[in-house]
C-alpha cells in the first residue's frame, strides 16, 4: 500500500510537469481565421481561436461571429487524462439541422504529437438530428506551422467525407481586436 502510494507520487511528479513541458508555448495566444485559406464557414462570419495551456489542460476558446452576433465557447481538454465536456463546442455548419442536445456531455481525449507541435483532440459528440440522436466522432489536429505564426486546424468527422481545414494567423499579443 505504502509502495503503491509512493509510486503514484513519483509518477505524478513525472507526469505533472510533462504536461507543461510537452506543450509548445507558441500555441498560446489569439489566432485569427484566414478565411481565404480555410474551408468556408457556414452560418458563421469569422472566428478567432484563443489557446491557453496550463499544465496538462489546454483551453481552446472559440470567439465566433455571425453578423453582429458574437459567441464565445471554451473546450477545456487535458493531455493527461480524458475529460467529459458539457456543452462541447464544435465549429458547426449552422445551415444543417444538426443540434447540440441539452444536458449531454462529450467524452474527449487529447494528446501531443510531432514533438509537441501537434495537438490531437478526439471527441465523441452526440448530436440531435431529425431522426433523433447520433454520435459524431470528431478528430481535430491543431498543427503549429514552421515559424509559429500559422496554426492549422484539420477536423475530421466520422460522418463527413471531406476534412474541414481552418488556417489561423497569430495576432500580436497587444492586439485586442475581436473577430
Amino acid at each position, binding site marked *: 500500500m505504502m509502495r503503491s502510494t509512493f509510486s503514484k507520487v513519483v509518477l505524478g511528479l513525472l507526469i505533472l510537469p510533462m504536461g507543461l513541458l510537452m506543450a509548445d508555448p507558441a500555441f498560446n495566444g489569439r489566432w485569427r481565421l484566414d478565411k481565404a485559406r480555410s474551408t468556408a464557414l457556414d452560418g458563421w462570419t469569422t472566428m478567432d481561436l484563443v489557446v491557453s495551456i496550463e499544465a496538462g489542460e489546454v483551453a481552446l476558446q472559440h470567439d465566433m461571429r455571425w453578423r453582429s452576433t458574437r459567441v464565445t465557447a471554451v473546450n477545456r481538454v487535458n493531455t493527461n487524462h480524458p475529460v467529459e465536456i458539457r456543452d462541447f463546442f464544435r465549429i458547426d455548419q449552422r*445551415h444543417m439541422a444538426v443540434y447540440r442536445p441539452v444536458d449531454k456531455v462529450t467524452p474527449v481525449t487529447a494528446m501531443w504529437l510531432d514533438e509537441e507541435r501537434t495537438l490531437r483532440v478526439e471527441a465523441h459528440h452526440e448530436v440531435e438530428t431529425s431522426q433523433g440522436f447520433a454520435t459524431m466522432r470528431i478528430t481535430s489536429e491543431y498543427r503549429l506551422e514552421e515559424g509559429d505564426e500559422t496554426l492549422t486546424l484539420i477536423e475530421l468527422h466520422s460522418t463527413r467525407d471531406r476534412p474541414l481545414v481552418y488556417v489561423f494567423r497569430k495576432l500580436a499579443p497587444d492586439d485586442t481586436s475581436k473577430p
Partner: protein
Amino acid sequence: MRLRHFSVIALLLGSVACGRDPAVAEASHEGRQAWVMNFDLDWDVAGGLPEKALLISLQGLANREAPQLYIVHPPDFQWEITEPLYEFYERKHHVDFTEIERADAALEQFSSAAKGYVVWDPGVGASLNVAFTIGGLEDAVVVSEALIPLVEKHGLTMIDDLRGRYTGMSDAEIYADSIERYWSRCSRDRIMLMGGHRGRARQPAMADWGIRERMFFHDLSADPDEADELALNRSLLDDLNPMSIVFGWHPYGKDTEEQSTTLLSSYGYKMEGLHNLPNLSFNCQFTFTPGFKFTNNHSVDRDAVLQAEEKVYLSFVQSDSIGIGVWTKPGRGKIPFAWQVTMNWTEFSPAALEYFHESATPNDYFIGGLSGPGYMYPNHIPADVFPKLMAQAGELMELLDERVMEIMDNSAADGNVGNADLPVETVDRYYEAFPDVIGFINGYGPARTRDLRDTRPMISYDYYIDPKRPREEVTADLNELIRLNSRRPYFLLVHVRESNDVNSLIEVIGNLHGPTEVVPLDVFLKLAASKKTYQTRYQQPDDPKHFKGY
C-alpha cells in the same frame, strides 16, 4: 364550382382594393396604350436616385386612373421579372408600349397627372419618405433641388418644400412631425414601410404604389432599443384597420427583419415586400386573362396513398416570393422544385402570377405562403385573428390550386440561422385551419419542428443552401446529413436560397451517397406520411432565442 365562384369574388375584390374600374380592366384585354421606361442600377443618393424618385412618384400619379407607365429594370435588379412581365403584357394583354427615354419626355407625357411638386432634401434621408407621403396626398411629384427647373419647365409649381425643415432633427422627430401633419389623411388599410437600403444608395421602387394609394411613408425602427422610433411605429400600427397590409420592407441597419416582422405579426398585419418591388401601381390594374385558371403541376392526387422505400428522399423548395432572382435563370425545370407564391399578388399583381404559371415547367410546383396570406410570423399572430387570416390564405390557396402551406417564423432566429421553430400551440392552429392540405413545411434556415397528424406531415428544412457556399461543401453537408440520419427512408427537405444556380445543384445531387431520389414536394409529403422516421418535435421553452420579442 366553388373555385369559379371564388375567382369571380377575388377579381372583384382585387378591383375594389386596387381602386381599378372593372370596365377598364376588361377593356385592357382588348388592347391599350401604355408607356415604358428602362431604369439602370444607379440608385445612389448622389447619383441616379433623385431622378428615379421623381419618375417613380410620377408613375404613381400617372397610374392613378389607368395603367399608363411601366418601368423595366435590368436583369441584375433584385426583381428580375420586370422585362418578362413587360413582354407578357404585350403578348397577353395586348398593351402597346411606347418607350420613354428621358425624364423630360416622361414629364411631357404625364405632368398633367400632377398638381405640383414637393422638394426633398438629399441631406436628410427621412425627408424623402415625407415627400412621398405628401406626393400621394397632394398629387405632387417628388424632386430634389436640382430637378426643380425640370419640373417647372413642364408647368408644375411648388406645393411644399422640405429643405431646411428637418435639418438636424432625428428620424423620430421628423416622423413625429409628419404624423402630426399628414397621418389623418392617409390610408388606414395599408401603410408604406419604405426602409430597405439606407445611406449612400436607396431603392424606393415601390413608392409608386404608396403614392397611388395615398399611404403614409416611414422607415421607423422596430428595435426595442430605439424606443422613440418604436413608439411612433406602434402608434401608426395601432391606428390601422384589422387585417391591414404593411408594404415595403424594414430599414436595414436600424432594426432586423425578425424584429420588424414580429412587430407587424403581433398586430395580425400582413407584410408585402420588398421596398424595391416595382410597378404595383401598374400591375394592380390588370386582371387574369379571360379563361385563365390556375392549374398546378400536382404529381399525386390529393387523396393518394404512397409507400416510401428504403432510400433517401430529397425535395427542393424556393421561397422568397418565387425565388427573387431565380425564375428566369438557366436550369429551371431540370429537377423538381417547389416555389412559394406570394398569394396576395392575386390582388396586386395578377399578371405576374399568371406569367409564373404560364412559364412553369412540369417540374415547377407552386405552394402557399409565407405562413399565411402574406409574410407573417405565426407564433406572434393574435389567437383571435389567426383563423380569419388562415381562412383567407386557404381561399387563396384554392384559387391558386395549391395544396402545401409553407410556414416561416424567424422571430427567434438570427437571420437564416437559429431558432425557426413553432410551439405546439401554433402547430395545433395550422392543423385546425388547413384540413385539406397534404402537408406543411416549415423554416427558412434549418428547423426542427416536425409532426404527422392523420395524413398531413409537417416537415422542417434539414438544410439551407447558402448561394455562396462552395458546391463541394454543400455536397459534403448533405452527405453528412444522410450519414447522421441513418434510418431509411430519410426525408431531407432542402431550402434553396434565392440566386442559387440550379445547374450546380444537379452536380451536387449526382455526388450524394446511397440510394437517393429527388421528388416533387407533394410526393415527398405523401411519402413522409407513409413512414414516420422523423421525430415529433416542437419549439421548447428553453430553446435558444436570439430575439426575445416585445
